[in-house]
């Protein structure tokens, strides 16, 4: 089908389609050119201060100058290589994952889930083997966004699986504990949970002990999100026919073997879209840690825009933050689709 036919069929097939097409074209006409000139044609990209900006377009100098803070927070400049190193390893391993055979994949998976977290924490925090200690209160920016998201995701997933299984357990104590846990965390807003983690939690600890605020925040987000993950996974467990349990049992597999080998692999495959959805939501909820005084990407943008030398540049900051969030969320979404296709076995 050529372009003229396609246009006629899809855009001008009758009078109201034609009208709608023109209205939309008109909306494009009034919105896109100004947007493009603001973002690109009239914008200033390079400079050292606000004075270098032309004034009519966007002042990307703001992002350029503050990029280091947006990325690493208040992390000391001479130590930033540690963060870079950890993330280079992280993305290198994830990238390599697509190109190697199953055996190496297993090794990479174990490295990424068991060894890498400790390596990363050691690199970020230091204080051992002559590496200078960097306190978590100076951590920030995109680095902190990713740190919190990755660790919360790693921890909340297995807890969610256990809760989902617990909620379907035949043992009343386990079942009611799981139901209570899930309903409790689902019933409160995340922002309340974060406040509790920051303000209330230390009250319950013996005096003198001080659990790092970042650790408390990650625990709070992990418990909160594990309740959501549990419900998503429970949906998957319920979709597995009873015959699968019968078959697994009839072959002599007990509860754990049948779940790990038969039920969960199938259930988790079904719930990939829901799990991806929850993880994306988790990622986008990280700015809420602002309420306890931690500043990830959006927090740093908020701080920078109130700097006296850079007043009036909130729009540039928010547009930048939105683009960064979008890139990561979109990547997660594409990855989940890819995973779904890869794991598809039956027709």
């Amino acid at each position, binding site marked *: 089908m050529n372009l003229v036919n396609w246009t006629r069929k899809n855009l001008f097939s009758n009078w109201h389609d034609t009208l709608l097409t023109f209205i939309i074209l008109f909306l494009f006409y009034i919105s896109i050119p100004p947007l493009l000139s603001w973002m690109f044609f009239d914008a200033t990209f390079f400079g050292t201060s606000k004075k270098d900006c032309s004034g009519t377009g966007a002042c990307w100098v703001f992002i350029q100058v503050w990029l280091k803070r947006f990325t690493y927070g208040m992390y000391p400049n001479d130590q930033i290589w540690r963060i870079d190193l950890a993330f280079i390893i992280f993305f290198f391993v994830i990238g390599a994952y697509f190109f190697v055979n199953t055996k190496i994949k297993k090794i990479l998976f174990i490295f990424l889930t068991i060894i890498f977290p400790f390596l990363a924490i050691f690199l970020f925090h230091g204080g051992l083997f002559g590496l200078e200690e960097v306190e978590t209160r100076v951590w920030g920016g995109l680095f902190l966004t990713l740190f919190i998201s990755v660790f919360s995701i790693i921890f909340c997933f297995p807890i969610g699986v256990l809760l989902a299984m617990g909620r379907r357990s035949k043992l009343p104590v386990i079942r009611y504990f799981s139901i209570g846990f899930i309903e409790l965390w689902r019933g409160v807003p995340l922002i309340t949970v974060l406040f509790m983690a920051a303000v209330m939690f230390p009250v319950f600890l013996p005096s003198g002990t001080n659990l790092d605020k970042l650790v408390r925040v990650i625990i709070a987000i992990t418990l909160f999100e594990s309740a959501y993950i549990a419900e998503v996974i429970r949906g998957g467990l319920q979709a597995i026919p009873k*015959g699968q349990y019968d078959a697994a049992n009839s072959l*002599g597999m007990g509860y754990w073997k049948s779940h790990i080998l038969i039920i969960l*692999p199938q259930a988790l495959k079904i719930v990939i879209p829901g799990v991806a959805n929850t993880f994306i939501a988790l990622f986008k909820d990280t700015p809420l840690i602002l309420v306890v005084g931690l500043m990830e990407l959006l927090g740093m943008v908020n701080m920078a825009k109130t700097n006296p030398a850079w007043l009036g540049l909130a729009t540039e900051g928010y547009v930048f933050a939105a683009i960064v969030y979008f890139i990561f969320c979109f990547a997660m979404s594409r990855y989940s689709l890819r995973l779904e296709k890869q794991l598809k076995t039956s*027709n």
Partner: protein
Amino acid sequence: MQSIIELKNVNKWFGEFQVLKDINLQVSQKEKIVICGPSGSGKSTLIRCINRLEEHQKGDIIVDGITLDANTKNIEKIRSEVGMVFQQFNLFPHLTILDNCTLAPIWVKKKTKKEAEEIATKYLEKVQIIDQAKKFPGQLSGGQQQRAAIARALCMEPNIMLFDEPTSALDPEMIKEVLDVMVDLANGGMTMCVVTHEMGFAKEVADRVIFMDEGKIVEEKPTQQFFNNPENERTKLFLSQILN
């Protein structure tokens, strides 16, 4: 002959409804019995009790000298000695046919991958689907899936095989390929309990036929006598309907 399965006064209820009423049954080693009866008569429940996929509330079930009770160790031991084939095949859709067959031998019987694959190959050859070993269940026909399911059960090298209406979900032209495998298995000396409506199969291989109705064993006879001289009125009616 020594009996390998023994049921004494077995009773079972689903809520208020009694599905099994005072069932007494003995199956000897290498014996083949066919259980038939109208739907809802409790025949599937009966054989599902033998490997405790269903729990009975009263009476004793003794399989290979082990009494079935709430003891999980015993249940798992029995289950690894009793193979089962289901109406809906119940293959694991996320695994290839070969992996379906090797999974339990590796994880339950602690065989090495190589040993398990040798056993799997042997039984997949026996049921004549070795050429489908690398495919997933969803890519096979119903008859092939059911043969794969039989091979999967055989890979545990069971002493007893239970069949729960193995041909009821199949297209007519695929029933024969599955029955042929079962006949072959029977000739090999396996102890078999088969719930089926395939009376041709019963006549060919069964030593005894058991007729159930409303949770009770109504008639129990050697195959010849069962078909030639049924005593119970209900059996006669059932046979006249199913044989025509």
